[in-house]
């Protein structure tokens, strides 16, 4: 495969597209598919053919505004429809080339304002199960360029220059990581893509894998070339069947086109990728636990050092990056590190994909430049809090992160700013809460998550999360004392300082951040036996609810 062949493939795709006057793109992401977007697509195709329009209805990946799904995008006019039903197919087909169907306007307002698509640049424009369409959008140009024009050192130099940092949450400089693995001597090295996204409310990696799987494979192949690896693994949760299916197809197609296998692009470089399914343990997102899981062992972390860069999969030097990190690689190589670094803040470059969920008008997948404020994301793109409720807090970073209150809404998003404010970037979950959320209950929810997801290897995490969960339950039930709060804070400190891996070390974060910003809510539960948000059932309310539940059982 060389540049000319890529261009030929692209020309063929364009040629086919030119045969049609209209293109109706139907979202085949998990949430739209759950609402039968596949049937909608068939119906539109049939109806369009019925009224003699030169139209093709295509399958594409997630378009972003999931709450308005199933989504349909009509090209070349660029009209979006939301909440489409199978019965709307006829109307959509008839409207092609005429006035759009006003009734199906998704009411997205300023959803796309300020968004900047780099990772998601192909999303909604290509069929995820068609490698040729990926190539037509500039796909695999970067791999060909890296293999034929650049040395591995030059590839790493560009990545380092881009200022790209790990998108899985830690924010470790990607260039530095690649450089370390490249320098470690080893006959066999591995590249691992971490797709074990498990934070509550996060679906960025799933969407990328479902919508543009080739992009991740290309990023992995470039990384393998840079560090001298010949084998790669993509570790995906088994709970993502659609992502797994699309990845499987993508890997087969990439092999057939010669982007994976022996002698890639007529060079001596060989690289192949296999999928490994996670059995649904959150801790397997931790790199050493993930490696143990791929090795077929119990998914538990081990103390570091040695880091995977030195001794990883089967003791070999291993590069492990997140899905979104790999998805950022191809454009960096195609356009250069400086281009990438031109966007973002001083120490956080490029864009970040967020899964915007919770009490928000427009739930969905968004990609924004680093440095954008939380207010712009939540109130601009997300459309604010619905039903006249008041914004209370936004949770970022999943169970490792924290809740930020209103006064931090003008915080510019970057790795360091979020940590200073007591939260963290995490993989990109962003859960908005309004005045009907009790912050103690929120902290309790995340603690319950950490408690059930603890692997059980080290005692502070295994037993400490149980104790903290019980104390939080006590507070929620209005049965706690000030001494319990002290004990909770003490446990937070000890568990955070002594746990073996990131799961336990960050498990107290949701408690600590809510204590920092919403201490008055804790105190209201403890001193006044009252839940300010009216969520927790305390005292009489609890007894009444208890009695009601009983009556129901007996009735």
């Amino acid at each position, binding site marked *: 495969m060389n540049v000319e062949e890529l261009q030929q493939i692209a020309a063929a795709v364009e040629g086919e597209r030119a045969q049609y006057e209209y293109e109706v793109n139907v979202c085949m992401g998990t949430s739209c598919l759950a609402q039968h977007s596949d049937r909608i697509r068939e119906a539109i195709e049939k109806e369009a053919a019925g009224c003699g329009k030169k139209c093709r209805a295509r399958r594409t990946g997630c378009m972003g505004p999931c709450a308005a799904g199933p989504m349909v995008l009509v090209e070349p006019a660029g009209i979006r429809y939301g909440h489409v039903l199978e019965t709307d197919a006829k109307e959509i087909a008839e409207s092609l080339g005429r006035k759009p169907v006003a009734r199906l306007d998704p009411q997205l307002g300023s959803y796309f304002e300020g968004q900047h698509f780099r990772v998601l640049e192909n999303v909604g424009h290509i069929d995820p199960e068609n490698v040729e369409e990926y190539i037509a959008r500039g796909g695999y140009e970067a791999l060909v360029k890296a293999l034929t024009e650049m040395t591995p050192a030059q590839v790493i130099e560009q990545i380092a220059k881009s200022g790209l940092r790990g998108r899985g949450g830690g924010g470790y400089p990607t260039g530095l990581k690649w450089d370390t693995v490249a320098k470690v001597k080893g006959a066999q090295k591995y590249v691992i893509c971490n797709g074990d996204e498990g934070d509550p409310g996060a679906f960025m990696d799933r969407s990328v894998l479902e919508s543009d799987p080739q992009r991740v494979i290309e990023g992995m192949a470039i990384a393998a070339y840079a560090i001298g690896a010949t084998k790669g693994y993509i570790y995906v949760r088994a709970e993502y069947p659609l992502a797994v299916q699309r990845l499987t197809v993508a890997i087969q197609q990439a092999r057939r086109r010669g982007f994976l296998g022996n002698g890639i692009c007529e060079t001596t470089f060989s690289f192949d990728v296999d999928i490994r399914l996670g059995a649904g343990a959150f801790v397997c997102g931790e790199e050493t636990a993930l490696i143990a899981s791929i090795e077929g062992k119990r998914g538990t972390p081990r103390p570091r050092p040695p880091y995977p860069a030195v001794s990883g999969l089967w003791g070999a030097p291993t590069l492990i990056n997140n899905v979104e990190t790999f998805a950022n690689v191809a454009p960096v190589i195609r356009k250069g590190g400086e281009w990438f670094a031109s966007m973002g803040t001083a120490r956080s470059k490029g864009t970040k994909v967020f899964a915007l969920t919770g009490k928000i008008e427009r739930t969905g997948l968004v990609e924004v430049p680093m440095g954008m404020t939380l207010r712009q994301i939540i109130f601009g793109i997300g459309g604010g809090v619905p039903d006249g409720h008041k914004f209370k807090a936004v949770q970022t970073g999943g169970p490792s992160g924290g809740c930020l209150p209103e006064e931090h809404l003008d915080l510019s998003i970057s790795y360091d700013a979020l940590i200073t404010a007591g939260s963290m970037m995490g993989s990109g979950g962003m859960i908005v809460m309004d005045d009907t959320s009790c912050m103690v209950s929120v902290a309790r929810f995340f603690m319950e998550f950490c408690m059930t*997801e603890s692997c059980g290897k080290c005692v502070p995490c295994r037993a400490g999360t149980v104790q903290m969960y019980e104390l939080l339950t006590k507070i929620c039930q209005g049965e706690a004392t000030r001494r319990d709060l002290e004990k909770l804070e003490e446990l937070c400190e000890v568990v955070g300082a002594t746990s073996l891996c990131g799961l336990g070390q960050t498990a107290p974060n949701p408690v600590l951040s809510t204590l920092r910003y919403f201490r008055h809510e804790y105190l209201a539960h403890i001193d006044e036996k009252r839940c300010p948000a009216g969520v927790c059932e305390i005292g009489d309310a609890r007894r009444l609810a208890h009695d009601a539940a009983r009556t129901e059982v007996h009735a």
Partner: protein
Amino acid sequence: MSAEANIRTLTIDEVDISARADETILEAAREHNIDIPTLCHLEGLSEVGACRLCLVEVKGARRLLPACVTRVEEGMEVTTHSAKIDRYRQMVLELFFAERNHVCSVCVANGHCELQSLALRLGMTHVELPYQYPQLPVDASHPRFTVDHNRCVLCTRCVRVCGEVEGANTWGVMGRGAQSLVITDLKEPWGESETCTSCGKCVQVCPTGALFEKNRAGTKTAKHPEFLPYLRIMREGEQR
């Protein structure tokens, strides 16, 4: 490389000491009679760094480091005891006690238990955290040994000795979090295990009363894990 190049000098609790480059902080400290409490560590077995009792402060390190897996480095400044570390260790111990049904007065290992001695040594007077009182089974199906999960601290010494020294791999861990349990084979009764050689090494290395020999009580329940380092040296000698 000359022999001198493999020696590192460091300070532990402000005492200047030297150690081989491949030694851990724990090994170096014990050679110089500096006390670092441990529970999951046992000489002769691989390290897991799970009990978190050997955490020490190393100057310049962002976090506390487990002494059992951290290698010595030139110029390292290690602190093994401070008000903060001692407080953390006590709390970790409390977590151990509150997690399962550790009631010393009615335990077969009373007086010979590493968890009990640690509590005494670290000056733990009481457990403030509420006991969890989980309902855990006791498996007495083996003709010679019993496993009482109520006393287990999940140090995985039994798992390691069975796999690494005996080579039977009878013991394993199932479940996760607080529901973790050491099991024989695929959670079959110990007595019905087809892989168990009844060698009893797991019983000897168990730090508490979780694994014990039947028909023994009082002074006779003392464990003797000292065989391990010797066994290892003998075997290494054979290989040479």
